[in-house]
C-alpha cells in the first residue's frame, strides 16, 4: 500500500463528502411512512414545493411507530404519518405543537383470488375479518407497530376477534415485504391502497374487500416543538407544513396518479 496514494484517495473521498454535505443547506428531513414513499407520492409533490421555496425535502421512509420515535429524538424536522390517535398523543406529550389533516386514502383487504374465506361479498370490513378468522384462512399481518398495523389491530378488536393461532402470521415487516410474503403463502393481508396499486409482484393476490368507511386512512402533518428541539429547522419545516395544506400543495396531491388512478385525496380544512 502506497502511502501517498492512500492519502490522495482519502483526501479526494473526504472532499467529495464535504461537497455532498454542503451542496444544499436548505433542506429539511421528513420522517414519513413507507406507503407514501413506495407509491411515488413524494417524487411527484416535492419538486413542486422545492421549486416554489428553494427548500429540498429529504424523506426517511419508516413505519409510523419508528417515525414517532425519530420525531421524539429530534432526528427529523417534520413528520407526515397516518395514525391520528398516535399523532394527537404526540401533540399532547408536547413533542409537536400542531397537527393538521393533509389527505386520506383507504385500506383494502387483498387475498388469494379463490377467496377461501369468501370475503368478497361481505357487508362490512368487520364481517370480512370475522369470516377470515372463522375459516382460519392464512392472514399476514405487518406486526411492526406501523400506522397500517395499528389500524388492522383496531379492526380485529372491533370484530371481537383475538388474532392468534396458526392462521395469523405476524411478519414484523414493512408493507411491501408483507405483500411479497402474503403473495408467497396465499394469505390475506391488510394494506393501504397506494402501496397495493403501486405494487408490482401480486402473483395470485387480488383486491377482495374495499369501500367500508371504517377503512378510512387519514394522514396528518406534525409541526415539531421548537421548545423541545431548538436545533431543528423549524422555519423551513413550517413552510412545508403550511404548503401541504395550501391550495397548491393540496392540488399537487390530488394530481398524483398511478396507472390513471388517484391514490391520495387531499382533505385539509
Amino acid at each position: 500500500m502506497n502511502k501517498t496514494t492512500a492519502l490522495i484517495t482519502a483526501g479526494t473521498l473526504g472532499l467529495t463528502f464535504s461537497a455532498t454535505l454542503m451542496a444544499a443547506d436548505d433542506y429539511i428531513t421528513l420522517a414519513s411512512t413507507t406507503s407514501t414513499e413506495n407509491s411515488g407520492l413524494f417524487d411527484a409533490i416535492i419538486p413542486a414545493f422545492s421549486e416554489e421555496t428553494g427548500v429540498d425535502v429529504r424523506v426517511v421512509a419508516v413505519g409510523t411507530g419508528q417515525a414517532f420515535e425519530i420525531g421524539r429524538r429530534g432526528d427529523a424536522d417534520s413528520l407526515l404519518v397516518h395514525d391520528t390517535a398516535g399523532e394527537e398523543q404526540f401533540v399532547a406529550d408536547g413533542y409537536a405543537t400542531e397537527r393538521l389533516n393533509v389527505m386520506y386514502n383507504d385500506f383494502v383487504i387483498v387475498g388469494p383470488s379463490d377467496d377461501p374465506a369468501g370475503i368478497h361479498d361481505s357487508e362490512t370490513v368487520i364481517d370480512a375479518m370475522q369470516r377470515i378468522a372463522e375459516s382460519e384462512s392464512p392472514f399476514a399481518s405487518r406486526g411492526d407497530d406501523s400506522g397500517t398495523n395499528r389500524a388492522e389491530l383496531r379492526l380485529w378488536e372491533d370484530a371481537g376477534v383475538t388474532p392468534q393461532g396458526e392462521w395469523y402470521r405476524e411478519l414484523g415487516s414493512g408493507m411491501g415485504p408483507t405483500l411479497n410474503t402474503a403473495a408467497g403463502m396465499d394469505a390475506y393481508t391488510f394494506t393501504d391502497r397506494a402501496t397495493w396499486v403501486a405494487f408490482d409482484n401480486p402473483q395470485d393476490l387480488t383486491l377482495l374487500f374495499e369501500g367500508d368507511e371504517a377503512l378510512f386512512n387519514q394522514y396528518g402533518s406534525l409541526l415539531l416543538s421548537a421548545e423541545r428541539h431548538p436545533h431543528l429547522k423549524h422555519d423551513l419545516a413550517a413552510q412545508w407544513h403550511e404548503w401541504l395544506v395550501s391550495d397548491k400543495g393540496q392540488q399537487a396531491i390530488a394530481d398524483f396518479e398511478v396507472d390513471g388512478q388517484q391514490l391520495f385525496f387531499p382533505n385539509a380544512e
Partner: protein
Amino acid sequence: MLTSDNAFSTALTLILSMDSALISIVMLSLQVSLMAVLIASLISLPLGAALALWRFPGRNVVIVALNALMGLPPVVAGLCVYLLLSRAGPLGEWGLLFTPTAMVIAQVILVLPIIAALTRQQVEALHSEYAEQLNSLGLTRLRMIPTLLWDARFGLLTVILAGFGRASAEVGAVMIVGGNIDGVTRVMTTSIVLETSKGNLPMALGLGIILLALVTMINAIAHMIGETAKRRLG
C-alpha cells in the same frame, strides 16, 4: 413473472442507459464502503499486528472479543451508531445522522474487527516463522510491526478485500443510520431493499447483478495488482 432473464436484461438496460440516479447510487456505495475500509485498515492493521506481538494480561479476551465481533450483526452496529449520533444521543450535536458520514462510521465498526482479527492471525504466524531472524537483527517489537505487515502484504490484501466485501454487502447498518434518502444516502443495497418492497423484483435483482459485477471488478483489480507485485519480486 420473474425470470432471471428479465433481471439480466433490466441490469443491462440500466447499465447501458447510464442512468444518472443509478450512477450516483453506485458512486455513493463505492465512496462509503471504500472510505470505511480505508479508515478501518489504517486502524486495524497496526492494531492486529501489535496484538500478535505483545503479550499482556487479558490478551486472549481481546482476541476472542475481536473474533466474535467479526460476526456482529450489521443492524446492531447500525442501531448503536444511530443511538450515538441521534440528536438525543451523546454525539447528537454533530448532526451526522442520515448523512454518508454516519454510514461510513457504521461500516468502519463492522469492518474493523474483521481486518484486525485476521491481521493478528497472519502476523502471528509470520512472526513465529521468522522470530529468530528478527530477534537477531535486534529489532524492537514496534519496529517489527511495519516489517511484518510488509512481509504479509499479499495475505493482508485478501484480508482487506474480505473487509470490503462485508462493507459493500451489508444493508442493515446503512439503512438505519443513512435512512435510504433518495439522492443523499441511498446506496446499492438499500435500493435493492426498496425495490424488493415495491415488488419490483426484476429491478431489485438487476441492481444486485450490478453490485456483484462491481465487487468482482474491484476484486479482480486487487488480484492483478497482487500478482504483478509478486512477479516483480520474483
